């Protein structure tokens, strides 16, 4: 098996079959006795909040987290190859990565100071 | 006279610029003295002009003298090159003479100036503008310093352009002088001043930009280098026939717009109608000469072949201009428009003279330029006085003024007669020379153009009759006659016309040799040498022809 990714495909196939099969099996086996209340969204028995239907709103802070995550995730992506090749890059690599980290830290500090990580 | 290395021409350019800046920067308290400063400066320039005239060697009028040559933009091959031959000098003098008169003419037309309101935009100022605009295009008092500064700036440009010996410099000035005129019309003109100003600017700029292409192309045809734009460098440049013709056309179009020739004259009546009288006098009297001056000093020497090629068409256009201008002048109801149309006719004569290619006609055309400046300047200024008194430009609003204001009527008549080239006035000499010179080469054109003289008599005399004769209209009874100041304004002009009419020889001396030189440049021989006033021996040593 020369290509290391082929086994992955096999596993994915098995996993997919399992995932589909499980739901399918319960669909076949399970009883079906619906009524209106069962199909309503769950809100402790009172009528569902209308705005939740079709994509509700949620606090803006989540966007902020997502954006911050994207930036830092990219940073991490850069650090992996650097870490693996650490021995070959020499001092130049160390200094470059430290510079890079410094530059990444600056906005991090900025966001921190400006309350980007406060959850209120 | 004095140190011969004194840069007369440059001084005559720099002085008004400095004066304009000084006037513009006058502190708030003394702004009403702007006209004093302006007049003083313009008189100083006039003095310099006289000095330059004395310094000028009339014996070698075809040579460009009093030269100043400094590199300006070597990267483009542009130099600050000023020098004048006879024609240029005469036009420079015409400019520096007219400017103080124009300033003087505007002296009292801002009665509220003494209030000296520094803050612009108060309600009364607006009211004043509106009323003055409805009655007459007079100079608003609070903006006197702007007006004076603009006039001085314009003077600098005028002097420089008639002396420019660098094509690029000529072009730059050609365009730059539009700006002060534009503001003069737009800020101080009549009700339709915006329209007129924009029309003027767009026409001139369009022509100028076409010329710009020609300028660039011409440079590339020439030898180039750091003085590649000098006229002397460019004369005789090798170029293919059609290149030459196209470049010629680009230049000619710009000049034809400037010296309003039919059919690109339409901006002039509007501009003249709306501009204040002084501005019109400068605009038509001097500024538009840049067009004919350019034809004479740039087109002919730079594009001899193309000039010969285009001459028949141009002559036809010129004749059409003569007749068209005269005919329309007859039908005008507005005094200023009328004068403007007469100018269209006169410019037709000048162009005709230039492109008839005889030394006599060219000499006549050169002289015509000066004379037309004097007579039209006087007419506009006088018409301005009239309009200021009546508050209207409509000819129909006048009548019978002769009895009330005899001096005004008399001077107007003289100026008008000069416009129809009555013998004894200087215009007669020039017009006669033009027609004679033209006749030698294009008899038909000359004959047709001569009818323009008859038409001229019609429009001048009709106008005089409608304005000054007949029963005096009741509302005009109290009209003032010319004041001393106003007499001082028109007096010099009339005097000059008379003097040059009876004794044109000194002026003609200035033009004779340049005319011969032009003819030689364009490569045409006089068809009837006997008529020539040029001695053949003097034509060989022009500095620009022997490249």
């Amino acid at each position, binding site marked *: 098996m020369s290509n290391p990714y082929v086994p992955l495909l096999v596993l994915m196939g098995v996993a997919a079959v399992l995932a589909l099969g499980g739901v399918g099996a319960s669909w076949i086996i399970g009883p079906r006795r619906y009524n209106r209340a069962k199909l309503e969204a769950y809100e402790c028995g009172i009528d569902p909040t209308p705005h939740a239907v079709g994509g509700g709103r949620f606090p803006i802070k989540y966007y902020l987290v997502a954006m911050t995550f994207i930036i830092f995730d990219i940073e991490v992506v850069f650090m992996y190859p650097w870490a693996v*090749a650490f021995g*070959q*890059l*020499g*001092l*130049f*690599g160390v200094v470059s990565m430290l510079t890079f980290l410094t*530059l990444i830290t*600056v*906005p991090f*500090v*900025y966001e*921190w*100071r*400006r309350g980007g990580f406060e959850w209120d | 006279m004095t140190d011969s290395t004194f840069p007369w021409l440059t001084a005559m350019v720099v002085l008004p610029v400095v004066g304009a800046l000084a006037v513009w920067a006058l502190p708030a308290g003394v702004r009403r003295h702007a006209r004093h400063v302006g007049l003083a400066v313009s008189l100083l320039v006039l003095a310099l002009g006289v000095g330059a005239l004395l310094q000028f060697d009339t014996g070698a009028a075809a040579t460009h003298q009093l030269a100043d040559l400094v*590199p*300006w*933009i*070597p*990267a*483009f091959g542009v130099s600050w090159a000023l020098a004048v031959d006879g024609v240029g000098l005469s036009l420079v003098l015409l400019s520096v003479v007219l400017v103080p008169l124009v300033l003087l003419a505007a002296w009292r037309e801002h009665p509220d100036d003494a209030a000296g309101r520094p803050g*612009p*935009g*108060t*309600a009364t*100022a*607006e009211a004043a*503008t*509106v009323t003055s605009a409805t009655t007459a295009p007079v100079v608003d008092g609070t903006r006197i310093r*702007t007006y004076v500064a603009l006039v001085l700036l314009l003077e600098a440009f005028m002097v420089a352009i008639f002396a420019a010996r660098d094509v690029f410099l000529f*072009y*730059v*000035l*050609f*365009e*730059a002088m*539009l*700006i002060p005129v*534009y*503001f003069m019309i*737009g*800020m101080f003109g009549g009700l339709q*001043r*915006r329209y007129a*100003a*924009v029309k003027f*600017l*767009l026409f001139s*700029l*369009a022509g100028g*930009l*076409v010329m*710009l*292409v020609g300028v*660039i*192309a011409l*440079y*590339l045809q020439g030898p180039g280098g750091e003085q590649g734009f000098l006229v002397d460098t460019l004369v005789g440049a090798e170029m293919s026939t059609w290149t030459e013709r196209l470049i010629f056309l680009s230049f000619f179009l710009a000049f034809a717009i400037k010296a309003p020739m039919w059919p690109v004259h339409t901006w002039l009546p509007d501009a003249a109608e709306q501009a204040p009288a002084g501005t019109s006098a400068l605009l038509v009297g001097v500024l538009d000469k840049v067009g004919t001056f350019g034809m004479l000093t740039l087109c002919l020497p730079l594009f001899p072949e193309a000039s010969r090629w285009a001459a028949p068409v141009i002559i036809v256009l010129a004749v059409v201009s003569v007749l068209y201008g005269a005919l329309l002048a007859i039908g005008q109801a507005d005094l200023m428009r009328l004068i403007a149309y007469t100018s269209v006719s006169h410019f037709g004569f000048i162009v005709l003279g230039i492109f008839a290619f005889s030394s006599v006609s060219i000499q006549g055309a050169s002289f015509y330029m000066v004379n037309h400046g004097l007579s039209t300047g006087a007419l506009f200024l006088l018409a301005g006085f009239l309009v200021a008194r009546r508050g209207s430009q409509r000819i129909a609003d006048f009548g019978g003024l002769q009895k009330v204001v005899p001096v005004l009527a008399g001077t107007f008549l003289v100026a008008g007669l000069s416009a129809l080239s009555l013998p004894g006035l200087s215009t007669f000499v020039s017009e006669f020379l033009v027609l004679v010179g033209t006749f030698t080469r294009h008899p038909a054109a000359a004959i047709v153009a001569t009818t323009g003289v008859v038409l001229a008599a019609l429009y001048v005399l009709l106008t005089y009759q409608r304005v000054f004769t007949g029963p005096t209209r009741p509302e005009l009874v109290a009209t003032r006659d010319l004041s001393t100041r106003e007499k001082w304004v028109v007096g010099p002009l009339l005097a000059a016309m008379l003097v040059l009419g009876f004794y044109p020889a000194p002026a003609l001396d200035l033009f004779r040799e340049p005319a011969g030189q032009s003819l030689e440049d364009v490569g045409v021989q006089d068809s009837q040498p006997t008529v020539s006033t040029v001695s053949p021996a003097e034509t060989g040593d022009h500095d620009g022809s022997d490249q």
Partner: protein
Amino acid sequence: MSFVAPEVQWAALAPIILVLGAGVVGVLVDAFAPRAARRPVHIGLTVVSLAGALVAVALLWRDVRADGGVEVLGGSVLVDGPTLVLQGVIALVGLVGLLVVADRTDSHEDAFAPSAAAVPGSDYEELARRKGLTTTEVFPLALFALGGMMIFPAAGNLLTLFIALEVLSLPLYLLTGTARRRRLLSQEASMKYFLLGAFASAFLLFGAALVYGFAGSVRYADIARAVSVPSDLDPLLVAGSVLILVGLLFKVGAVPFHSWTPDVYQGAPTPITGFMAAVTKIAAFGAILRLVYVVLPALEWDLMPALWGVAVVTMLVGTVVAIVQTDVKRMLAYSSIAHAGFVLVGVVAMTSSGISSVLFYLLAYGLATVGAFAIVSLVREVDARGGAVVAEATHVSQWSGLGQRHPVLAGAFALFLLSFAGIPLTGGFTGKFAVFSAAVEGDLAWLAVVGVVASAAAVFFYVRLIVLMFFTDPAGTPGSSTTVVRTDGLTHVAIGLGVVGTILLGVLPSPVLGFLSDAAVYLP
């Protein structure tokens, strides 16, 4: 496989590092400095860094003149004559532009929102307004943009080009959305700019990929070598270079790719509009110049006709559409489109004078643009009821009579307009003359003719504004509709610099022209 650490000539990067470093420090200032101290510190930082960049450019110029330039970072950045000129011009014009950005008005109606992140009309915004906050982040953002712009024309490979493009664009997208007044307009302009800008940069990137596929390298020098040898892959190359040019032409607002310009110019805070109109164009044309003159000259027969067409259409559309505009900022936007066309005329000349003429034009245009928008930022509407100064008066009718009330300011604006129109004795004329003569020299006389026709038509709308300012009576009683707001004076300094520069470049352009023709030599 062994890795050899590259040797970096840091000195040659000094201008870029100074500016970007100041941006980084600026972020820290915003993080740590007390609120009251932020603005002064930012102004000091900005001025010092840009002045330092100018000095660095001047110092580098000696070496570059001697040896023609250096390749830094393995050819990623090329420091040669045009690079230094453009960096200097960018730093200079950027400095002037940032003076306007930095200014504050007496009426506390600044150009920038108290808190750009706040929802307009929300309590939070009201609170920020009452506390007198301003978005001081504009300074570091502008510095980052400037840093990107300084890299842009120096880029020596397609990757650097792309990165620089993004570094300069992203801050501008944000800056566009920070206007204090008409927030929604501003934000929408920001979004439009962002979407279209990202779209264009995607084109550039895909083009870069194709060119990389053709040449097997992203270095300009290698590509140029590969381009000169005909091969089967030529379609790849042509498609790639066209896509790259599309991305760049977008940045300069050339015509098929111009649709963002008027909206963004109108929506952005006016100081930012001036800043970006001037400096972005300089940087983007710098990049185009290098690409056209160094990388793709062998493709002249394939690309030039397209560029000619773009130049013609740009000039004509910019001019014609500007004529019908009634908003000053939109009009200036279309005028800037037309100017992009004029500059393109110089670019396609393909002569060495083409390079220097473009550089000169950009300098003249940049100074006048910054000055013009600075003036626009000062002319404000007055609230009819309270008499308070509110938003900028950008409708042309509101400018009527300005020349009578504020003759000096209106005079300066008229000067800038005349410079745009290319009236002699202004920098604009010298620039136009330079590019047109370069075009004629490059056997493109017809293009110069089109350019001349377009500039003749363009005069119309510039003149119309002058007519309004000087020849029309102001509407209403004085100060009731339109006024000029008083400021700390930085804007006036910028306007003054613009006026002086415009006149000097018009009357005595010789030293600059001489210098530029010396500098207009690219590293191979």
